[in-house]
């Protein structure tokens, strides 16, 4: 099997970017990655792109700005899988090189929420809520009630439900969510690309904020950021040929999909009732570890970038991905294990809770994991030897999961 490495990463500045149009935003990340990898534009053989286009209002945006990212005349493939699109694009880029068709592939994903004209940048979310919950009308809900539910619910609604389930099965409390959110903002303060920075933020600061939809507080919610993230992959031969010294090797990928979580009703007839189950995440992790040759994730993985727009998801997925036993993640949090200087740092970048450009955040987890391995994470570099890292994303109706295991050496070295 071909060995594939990440040779360069780039991010645009995340935040509210009304100073640029969508094309310029993506170009920022792309050219930053090209510079980071120290290669020429002519070295890039193919592209992998993705975003949630319902949020940006352009159908096939990559075709509009192909020239901005030097893709003219080159092969380009696009994926779109909801919140995981960053992770899916990262996987696509990996497979493009692993297939043997290309030696150097650039993968970029992005989101520009500020192009929405609705308050709270919710144009895209409204589309999600309505389109995907339309089956409610089949069971007798009228349009007006549906509108109220959709506007209030959307991603927050499903996540609140998931948080409640998780609290029941794990025994954690809202205070733990406060702690995770505070850690995210403290870490983000050390990351120059992050959106919500709050140096010295404490759980008490978060606890003071209003309850939005139980058990989620205002202080738990992630921002709607604009941003783009980009990685450049290269085959082992290309790494040698281009003379790249610092790389992060992709050791294993997996992306198992579960059926959508629809309050106990779905089109298949069976149903996912407990959203904190996340069978897809468990399977994806297991498969990715097997492919990567990882037998004991808790011992062998050094840092994890988990996709957690809401704080309970960091705890939940850290268990599903095998880092802590069921129901013990909150204990590890209390002991400071997941702090940036802890034994098992999670989201040293601040994670999605501090910066959420939906289309970009899945890829950003890959970028951050790669930076940790290459030792290039600047102020938020974890102060330990990083041999293996995990980048994870979830999406869809809490049913998609993408997992990538990265290492400082290729598998079987």
């Amino acid at each position, binding site marked *: 099997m071909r060995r594939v490495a990440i040779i360069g990463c780039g991010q645009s500045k995340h935040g509210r970017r*009304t100073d640029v149009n969508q*094309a310029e935003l993506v170009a920022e990340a792309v050219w930053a990655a090209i510079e980071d990898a120290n290669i020429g534009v002519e070295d890039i053989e193919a592209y992998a792109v993705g975003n949630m286009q319902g949020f940006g*209002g352009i159908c096939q945006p990559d075709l509009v700005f192909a020239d901005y990212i030097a893709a003219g005349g080159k092969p380009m493939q696009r994926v779109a899988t909801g919140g995981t699109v960053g992770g899916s694009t990262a996987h696509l880029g990996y497979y493009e090189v692993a297939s043997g068709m290309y030696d150097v592939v650039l993968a970029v994903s992005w989101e520009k929420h*500020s*192009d*929405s*004209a609705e308050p709270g940048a919710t*144009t895209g979310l409204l*589309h999600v809520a309505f389109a995907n919950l339309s089956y409610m*009308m089949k069971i007798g809900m009228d349009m007006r009630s549906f509108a109220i539910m959709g506007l209030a619910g959307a991603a927050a609604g499903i996540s609140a439900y998931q948080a409640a389930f998780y609290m029941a099965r794990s025994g954690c409390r809202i205070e733990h969510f406060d702690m995770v959110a505070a850690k995210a903002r403290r870490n983000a303060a050390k990351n120059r690309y992050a959106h919500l920075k709050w140096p010295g933020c404490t759980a008490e600061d978060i606890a003071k904020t209003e309850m939005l939809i139980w058990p989620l507080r205002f202080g738990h919610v992630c921002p709607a950021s604009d941003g783009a993230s980009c990685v450049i992959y290269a085959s082992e031969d290309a790494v040698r040929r281009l003379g790249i010294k610092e790389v992060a090797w992709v050791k294993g990928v997996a992306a198992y999909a579960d059926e959508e979580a629809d309050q106990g009703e779905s089109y298949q007839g069976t149903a996912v009732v407990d959203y904190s189950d996340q069978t897809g995440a468990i399977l994806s992790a297991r498969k990715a570890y097997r492919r990567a040759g990882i037998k004991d994730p808790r011992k062998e993985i050094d840092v994890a970038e988990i996709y957690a727009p809401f704080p309970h998801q960091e705890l939940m997925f850290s268990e599903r991905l095998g880092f802590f036993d069921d129901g013990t993640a909150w204990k590890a949090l209390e002991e400071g294990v997941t702090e940036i200087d802890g034994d098992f740092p999670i989201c040293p970048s601040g994670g999605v809770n501090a910066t959420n450009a939906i289309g970009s955040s899945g890829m950003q987890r890959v970028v951050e994991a790669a930076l940790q391995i290459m030792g290039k994470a600047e102020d938020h570099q974890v102060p330990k030897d990083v041999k293996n890292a995990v980048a994870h994303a979830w999406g869809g109706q809490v049913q998609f999961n993408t997992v990538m295991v990265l290492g400082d050496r290729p598998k079987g070295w």
Partner: protein
Amino acid sequence: MGVDRYSGLPFVARFRWSVGKIMEKFYRSFAEKKIIAAKCEKCGYTVVPPRQICPQCYSRMGEENFVELSGRGVVESLTEVAFRLDGKGGYIWLEKPELLAAVKLEGANSTIFVRVEGDARIGSEVEPVWAEKTEGKPSDLISFRVVK
């Protein structure tokens, strides 16, 4: 068997796109009835509307690369359009067909797609038709017309 159908959502979710600083300048110069392009220093490719990356050699460009075009151009291709889309997927059939042209502006390499008035052919020379009062908005540039 049949399927249930629902239509007519009780809201419209709209977009308002940021155009970026360079496009902002491009539209502002409409107020002075000017059409601005960006000329690449490295390869000479002149792109209109202007942008920060050359489509041909990918060099960076900025306001220092701005050039003002004469506004005149040549019709490269032409079509008589018989319909418009109504935004919902329906066709609105026009009483009189409108002319749409692919125009190569003098001094630029890009092609722009514009309405054309007059007896245009492929190869006709055209010039811009501006609104009476130009305010620096897209609607200032109404169409192009054949140069007499």
